[in-house]
């Protein structure tokens, strides 16, 4: 049996080498298909980890509260540009209380708007972020220079401002901004600090904004009394569900909503863990969809192999006849032709894996050069998958020609011209 296998491999490599050009062209379909699958799996995984890491960098232990009701799967109501005023500063204070939400670590409430900040003759249009002190804890904000505002300043409507690094650069250039007065909406604010540069996280520029104590922003700049968003940091991601329920109960009580089913809620509670899960599901689906498209070319390659094998069977009818005359059984002939088909697809598969891996590496190098934190992921799984699929393609598409060869009557095969 071992000798037979050895012979089989020898015979099939010989047959393939005898028609080098043709074997290679046949292989090309498999090479391209396998390389495409490897590249797409690698690029897909790289892009996925890029996105997920961005989202993770925002924290997975964060719960967001938005005004207005929304479907669990749909976008929040405020996305449509509707202003909903149901959430207040006092709601945030209530939620940031361990008696109400035992798992809370800290909370931040925002009221955001656009505005012009000016210093002397310089002025700059930027985002005005009215926020609470909790920003530092919840969003991992770090101060580069000076200090962030305090709880007292927040409560007492202090006219102080902390600059994002971009704003600082645009307004002050190289001068020291600490202690300077900037003008926002014709009011003077004292610059007390500059934030550390954070770059773009989750596709949001964090440096192009100024921080104003929330109450100051509400009363003196925007003239409103609601908040546009709240974010809570909790002690452990595992407690997300419990904390979300606690938040809902507290808010329903404060908003005098008796319906505990959630149907009448005027707010939406979402967790970053949920969002991460959703993004993972979506990117996974995309990744496998693309891989499936690439796998289609394997199907086409397989049909090419079937075609060539059928030709080969016809060309080698006499050989088959002779082999049968000297005692080859139908099974012997069948395994010979199957082995040939598999050698084509397996060799093609291996070449495809090598080419695909090289291209994946080049793509990841390119992405890193462009400044993305791109992981190279040519997973053993995708290589294993590619090899298995190559063998399977050979087996499936080789089966019909091999069967045809094995069923030839010896005498008809010998007579074939």
């Amino acid at each position, binding site marked *: 049996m071992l*000798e037979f296998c050895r012979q089989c491999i020898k015979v099939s490599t010989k047959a393939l080498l005898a028609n080098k050009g043709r074997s290679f062209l046949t292989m090309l379909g498999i090479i391209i298909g396998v390389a495409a699958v490897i590249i797409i799996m690698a690029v897909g995984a790289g892009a996925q980890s890029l996105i997920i890491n961005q989202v993770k960098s925002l924290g997975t232990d964060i719960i967001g509260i938005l005004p207005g009701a929304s479907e669990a799967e749909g976008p929040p109501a405020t996305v449509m540009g509707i202003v909903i005023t149901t959430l207040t500063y006092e709601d945030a204070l209530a939620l940031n209380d361990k008696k109400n939400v035992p798992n809370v670590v800290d909370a931040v409430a925002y009221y955001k708007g656009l505005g012009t900040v000016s210093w002397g003759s310089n002025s700059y249009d930027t985002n005005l972020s009215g926020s609470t002190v909790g920003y530092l804890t919840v969003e991992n904000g770090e101060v580069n220079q000076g200090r962030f505002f305090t709880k007292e300043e927040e409560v007492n409507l202090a006219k102080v401002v902390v600059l994002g690094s971009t704003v600082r650069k645009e307004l002050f250039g190289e001068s020291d901004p600490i202690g300077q007065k900037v003008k926002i909406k014709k009011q003077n604010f004292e610059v007390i600090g500059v934030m550390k540069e954070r770059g773009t996280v989750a596709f949001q520029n964090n440096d192009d904004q100024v921080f104003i104590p929330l109450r100051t922003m509400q009363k003196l700049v925007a003239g409103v009394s609601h908040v546009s968003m709240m974010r809570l940091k909790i002690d452990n991601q595992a407690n997300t569900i419990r904390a979300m329920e606690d938040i809902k109960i507290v808010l329903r009580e404060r908003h005098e909503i008796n319906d505990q089913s959630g149907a009448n809620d005027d707010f939406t509670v979402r967790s970053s863990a949920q969002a991460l899960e959703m993004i993972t599901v979506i990117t996974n689906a995309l990744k496998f969809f693309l891989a499936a498209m690439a796998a289609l070319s394997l199907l086409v390659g397989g049909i090419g192999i079937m075609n060539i094998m059928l030709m080969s069977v016809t060309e080698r009818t006499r050989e088959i006849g002779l082999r049968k005359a000297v005692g080859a059984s139908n099974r012997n002939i069948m395994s010979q032709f199957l082995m040939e088909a598999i050698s084509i697809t397996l060799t093609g598969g291996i070449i495809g894996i090598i080419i695909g891996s090289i291209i994946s590496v080049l793509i990841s190098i390119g992405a890193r050069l462009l400044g993305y934190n791109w992981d190279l992921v040519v997973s053993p799984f995708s290589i294993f998958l590619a090899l298995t699929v190559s063998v399977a393609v050979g087996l499936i598409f080789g089966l019909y020609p091999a069967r045809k060869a094995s069923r030839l009557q010896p*005498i008809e095969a010998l007579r074939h011209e």
Partner: protein
Amino acid sequence: MLIQVHNLVKNFVNDEIVTKVLNGLTFNIGSGEFVAIMGPSGSGKSTLMHILGLLDRATIGKYYLLGKDVTKLNDDELADLRNQKIGFVFQSFNLLPRTTVLENVILPLTYAKRKVEPMARAKEVLESVGLGHRLNYYTNQISGGEKQRVAIARALVNDPAVIFADEPTGNLDSKSGVQIMEILQELNNQGRTIILVTHETYTSEHAKRIIKIKDGLIVDDYEVTQRRIARDGVRLK
């Protein structure tokens, strides 16, 4: 008795038109005989050889090979019998392209269940037909006579009970033809059964017995009295 045939009939059906090729043949061939099956083309002699060689099946009739009713065997059992008990030598050699002399002779051994050292056995047989110096030549690098000797070596390698030679000299020049006939006669002298199929009276007279066939019937079956002995100096070792 090596071969017993009783009322053998073979019809070919093509597009529902039945062509009768063999019309009821009955004969026996014993072990150690050298029989020439002779007849003009279209007489059915090749078809008869194919059936006797288990390459084809009879339509009607009985065929016992070594006492075994082969009409009842399945494809795999027939393949096994061909491998173990039968050797073929064809007019057009039928060697595998792009393979060496040695590989061609090893071929039947790779399908054999019995354990022999294939390399050693193939070399031994090739040396016995005087091709010990051609082992690693490719089949397109040797002459026609040498090709036919490779085919004989291939037929012998599994030590078969009978060798079928279908016009073995048909594609050869006369000198090579003599060599081949000499080898066949020598094999017969060593006790091997040879069944030779030919349309030439001259070639058939190298056998010990001639069965003449015409239109699918045996018209004559006799011992050769004035047997030709081929001599060309190529001796079996």
